[in-house]
């Protein structure tokens, strides 16, 4: 009986480990492959990526691709090229940064003020507004991109970063999550501050914001990863290749630079992975509180 239970637990652990391996594999492989030399990359994957450029010879037919876990020779040459010799990629990385950081900051700023408004005062109009925000939040990009495109066109923002930053700043996603967490602040806390003669702004700044610190952090991570990963908006609103973020540019890298691509891909995931490792607990808490769409 006891032995059986141990066996069961072992089986479950193996199952979990199997899943974990599958979940980790792509990330880990990208990182380890970024330390390969260009020649090793071409030797391993030449066939896959030469197909793209159409130079497929008969000699390759029997050969297959060799997905390698550990490089034969660890080399930093790809990183040196990316970081020092060709600043083009760093420029694209910088494009991503100056798109995403303003969006995260602005969206959180706008959202915290709005969330306070939705928390402190309720009424028919305001609950209708909130309901409306929820619907807007759930709309897929396919729907919101068309209006965004039209506005950018009217305001002459097309092909500038603002065409992505402005709609991002007012996106209702963080309003929803922040309102949910602000509504968990005990009303007595706010009442007490009001009795002490604090103004609404002071209550907001000195009580609500500090109470929501962990929520703000987890929402910042969620917003960051969403926009760090964006593809749809830049290809429509920012067609100029010079200004496009790395998330789009990575897919256009040609076959001769596959080796570089691994290094760039690794560099690109560093910020979000660091954020994840640092804020995982907040993030988990933030997601867990999302439980339902009703305020």
């Amino acid at each position, binding site marked *: 009986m006891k032995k059986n239970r141990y066996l069961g*637990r072992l089986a479950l*652990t193996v199952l*979990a*480990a199997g*899943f*974990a391996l599958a*979940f*980790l594999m*792509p*990330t880990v492989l990208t990182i380890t492959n970024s330390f390969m030399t260009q020649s090793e990359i071409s030797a391993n994957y030449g*066939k*896959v990526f030469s*197909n793209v450029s159409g130079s497929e010879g008969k000699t*390759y037919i029997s*050969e*297959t*691709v060799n*997905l390698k876990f550990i490089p034969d020779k660890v080399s930093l040459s790809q990183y040196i090229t990316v970081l020092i010799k060709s600043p083009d990629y760093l420029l694209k990385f910088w494009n991503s940064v100056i798109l995403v950081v303003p969006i995260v900051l602005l969206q959180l700023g706008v959202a915290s*003020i*709005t969330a306070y*408004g939705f928390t402190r005062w309720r009424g028919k109009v305001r609950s209708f507004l909130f309901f409306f925000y*929820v619907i*807007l939040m*759930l*709309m*897929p*990009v396919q*729907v919101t*991109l*068309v*209006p965004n*495109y*039209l*506005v950018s066109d*009217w305001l002459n923002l097309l092909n500038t970063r603002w065409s992505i930053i*402005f*709609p991002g*700043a*007012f996106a209702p996603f963080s*309003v929803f999550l922040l309102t949910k967490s602000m509504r968990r602040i005990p009303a007595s806390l706010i009442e007490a501050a009001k009795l002490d003669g604090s103004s609404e702004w002071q209550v907001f700044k000195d009580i609500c914001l500090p109470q929501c610190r962990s929520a703000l952090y987890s929402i910042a991570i969620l917003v960051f*990863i969403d926009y*760090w990963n964006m*593809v749809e908006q830049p290809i429509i609103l920012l067609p100029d290749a010079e200004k496009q973020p*790395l*998330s*789009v540019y*990575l*897919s256009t890298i040609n076959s001769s630079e596959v080796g570089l*691509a*691994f290094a760039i*891909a690794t560099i*690109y*995931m560093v910020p*979000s*992975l660091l*954020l994840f490792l640092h804020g995982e607990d907040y993030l988990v808490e933030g997601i*867990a509180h999302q*439980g339902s*769409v*009703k305020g």
Partner: protein
Amino acid sequence: MSMKTAEIKFGGRGKKPLAAGQGKVKRTWDRSNEHIRDVMHSAAFLGPSVTGVAVFFIVPFLVVVYYSIIRSPLNPEFVFLDNFKAVLGNSSFRTAASNTAMFSAIAVPLAVVLSLGLALLLECRIPCKSLFRTFFLSPMMVPVASVVLIWQVVFHYRGTLNVILASFHVEPIDWLNSKYCLLVIVVLFLWKNLGYNMILFMAALNNIPKELLEVADVEGASAAHKFFNIKLRYLSPTVLFVAILSIINSFKVFREIYLLVGKYPFDGLYMMQHFMNNTFENFDYQKMASAAVLMALVMVALIALLFKAEDIFGKDVEG
């Protein structure tokens, strides 16, 4: 004189109603004042966001609706449903819609069941739970663009997967250019989204009253009985929430497809967003507008369903 008589006439008793009346006036005045102040305050706090949302989403969306019912911006003749009929009859739109629907139909149930499975797995007594949680959640934080190279290597005609299959004497499959392409994207979708859903399920599992499960244990209920009769009942709102969330996320899968196979994928991977992109490129405002409005209507229907379901299932659990 009259004041005095009045005072005398009503005496001490008269004072009270008068005072109360005065107070009432003052209070209602105060209250309406407070009401105005509240409105002003809430307007000040909600104003910036409402303005932004109106400028960048609502007003242009109304224009989109307008575009969808006229012949063209240059010839604003009211045609009502013509554009919608044209879009619905358009073969690329049909391909895109059916592919998107097909994808959601495969991916969403899998996303719900597998993430619930993972959450239950982490409920069991296994070592290193938090490490496993981190691992399961990590794909969510990895930009798709970063790992797309690996996926390309795995699913290429001469890629790893076919090499592995070859050792089992399975003929190589051109994963991305055949009817199997949707499966590849489903795998990618699951890889990315399972962790997030799992967290939602874990939170819901945590909220199940422990006493109930203990009673069931005492009564000697089997694990299956506990799962189907207790846990699943409490999880039903979350199951729904995860399902709707997954449907919405499944519309975002264009990202993966675009990065994996580019702008012009195999027919089976032609999604709604591809259709939208093409209309953007051709500046076909009518098609674009009608497609967006149709999509919005489908979404509103889905969301209404979600709210309704939350009502029903929420009550079921509380009651």
